[in-house]
């Protein structure tokens, strides 16, 4: 394999891993504060992508032509909208079920995801079909050897890394982050310390959902199309990545996301070369088998949760 092809694979994996990581980060945040799985997260992300499309149509309708302004408006409006959606889900579906078995939260958010998905499909014009996502970033390509480097891919990659780093700073350095970590460690004690538990939960759900929405917009810009059912698979993979990395741990989610992307690429490309009878369609079988083996080896995730047994 030549160097340029290899770098192409590397960029693919980085980009895909980043999108997975951004979804996984949401799962990990929700799990951190409430010990619940918000299964509608993938669909919230999809709703974010469609929200951006609506915002784009609105900017066109009022006659804004500069693509950077359009992009900015899209990102801002969809982030706000999706954060609100996430907070609403937390307020009206997740918090009321706090005293029920935690799995019931999974069921109610699962149904919420289905409602969101079907609603977008039915309400958005011609929503059953894939929708074009405007490619607003400059898409010149540099040719380095045999490698086609596109400017927009690079921008997305850098922005994604900055976002994840920014979230990390927010969680570790800011007062809000401190509160989130306090609630994550022990909700009762955090309350005693004067932290408004419900507010922090809502904020965290908003924050995680907003990250998901940004992931949705990035996904849209990268693939230049979006379909109503993208959240389904992204949700499952993001969830798997979050757990594989170790729930409640930001680094774990990121690691899990990138690992997943690499596993899929190996399954699709490298294995069929090594084993001639191995059709590349088995790549999911391969990726998920490795996940089972890994989780059997490290039962609390690759970066283990640092909690002692509470008796």
């Amino acid at each position, binding site marked *: 394999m030549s160097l340029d092809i290899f770098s192409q694979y590397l960029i693919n994996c980085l980009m895909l891993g980043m999108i997975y990581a951004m979804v996984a980060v949401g799962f990990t945040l929700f*799990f951190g504060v409430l010990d619940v*799985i918000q299964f509608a997260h993938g669909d919230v992300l999809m709703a974010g992508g469609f929200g951006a499309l609506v915002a784009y149509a609105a900017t066109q309708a009022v006659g804004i032509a500069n693509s950077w302004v359009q992009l900015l408006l899209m990102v801002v409006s969809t982030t706000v909208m999706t954060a609100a959606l996430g907070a609403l889900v937390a307020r009206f*579906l997740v918090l*009321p*079920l706090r*005293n*029920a*078995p935690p*799995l*019931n939260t*999974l*069921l*109610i958010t*699962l*149904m*919420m995801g*289905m*409602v969101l998905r*079907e*609603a977008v499909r*039915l309400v958005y014009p011609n929503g059953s079909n894939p929708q074009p996502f405007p490619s607003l970033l400059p898409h010149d390509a540099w040719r380095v050897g045999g490698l086609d480097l596109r400017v927009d891919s690079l921008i997305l990659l850098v922005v994604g890394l900055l976002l994840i780093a920014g979230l990390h700073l927010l969680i570790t350095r800011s007062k809000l982050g401190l509160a989130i970590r306090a609630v994550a460690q022990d909700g009762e004690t955090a309350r005693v310390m004067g932290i408004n538990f419900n507010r922090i939960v809502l904020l965290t759900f908003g924050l995680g959902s907003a990250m998901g929405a940004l992931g949705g917009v990035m996904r849209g810009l990268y693939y230049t199309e979006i379909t109503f059912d993208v959240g*389904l698979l992204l949700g*499952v993979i993001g*969830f*798997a990545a979050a*757990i*594989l990395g170790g*729930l409640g741990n930001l680094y774990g989610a990121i690691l899990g996301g990138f690992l997943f992307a690499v596993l899929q690429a190996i399954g699709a490309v490298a294995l069929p070369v090594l084993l001639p009878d191995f*059709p590349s*369609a*088995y790549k*999911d*079988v391969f990726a*998920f*088998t490795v*996940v*089972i*083996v890994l*989780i*059997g080896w490290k*039962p*609390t*995730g690759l970066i283990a949760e640092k909690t002692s*047994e509470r*008796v």
Partner: protein
Amino acid sequence: MPLGVAMLVLLALSWALLGAETQTEVFGLFGVTAVIAVIASRLKFTESLGRVAVEHERAVSIACVVGILILMALFHEDHFPLLLLGSVLLYATACLGLNIQFGYVGIVNFAGASFFGIGAYTTAVLASHTAMPHLLILAAGGVMAALVGCVLLLPVLRTRGHYGALVTIAFATLFRSFLEVNDTLGGPQGLKIPSLQFFGWDLGEGLIFGGVEFSFYANYVFFALLLCMAAYVCVRRVERSWLGVAMDMVRTDEIAASVFGISIARQKIIAFVLGNLLVGIAGAAYGMMTNYIAPNNFTFADSLILVSMLLLGGIGNPLGVFPAAALILILPEKLQFIQEYRFLLYGTVIIFILLFRAQGLLPRGIRRFFPCAENDPRQ
């Protein structure tokens, strides 16, 4: 007395639901059900009903069986309601298996549909390529599901909670992918399964009984009912035995359980294998009833449907899976008249049910150690 009334109302409602066809009928039925539910909860009827139901457990079970037989007689020649009834019973059987895992020992299993599928595929292969008696094939379906499940035992034992969920989610995804890519098991088109036969009696043939013609699905409903009863008795026996007590203990506190000398691994292995066995048998019977299986029936989404039934019914209460399975299987079917909007409404309905009954429809009560005692001190 209240028990009898409730049973009659339930019977009437399920009869109406299975028979309802048009928009007005279905919506009218929704309205009536909601009104009954509200009135019942206002009059504190549900609570006393719950208490009575626990006291007269045997009567309730018998009433359920009789009710299903009555429904079967009422619909004796309508194929479609009978097919639905049969599906509900078989899915409920599968949920009973999952109930041992989720509800008693506390293992999460998000690959229910995969084990269901293993049962069905085993049946398809054995029934079309060997001359094994079909009852044995059904059992083989269950055993196969349990055996394949054993591959997952090590990661399942080592992990807990959400991490355990990942193991089974990964398995569910790869299982479906594998079925689709692999052509020896029919590939994406699936496989045909011959209909069930007992000692020369073909369940796929309609029966004429005392001058009345019965749909061939009536045979399957009857068979599914027998299977379901056996599974229910088995699950209840497990719950009431020392095994059940040990499992409950493992679920509530593993450390405390191990302090009392209970082998956590042993309980979990028993629960996982037994649960998968039941799911596999249910899947095998389902495959024979529908005569056709394809990978699309056994996706991760289908596993989630099974889990939904369990959760909606109330984790740990084997009685809860019946109304939940009925709701989750029949509701989308009855919403066919709103065509592409039906899943939107279906999702919303389930969300509202959960908001009003956060613990599920029939949550599991506190274990009663002396079920026969007249004057239980906690009553």
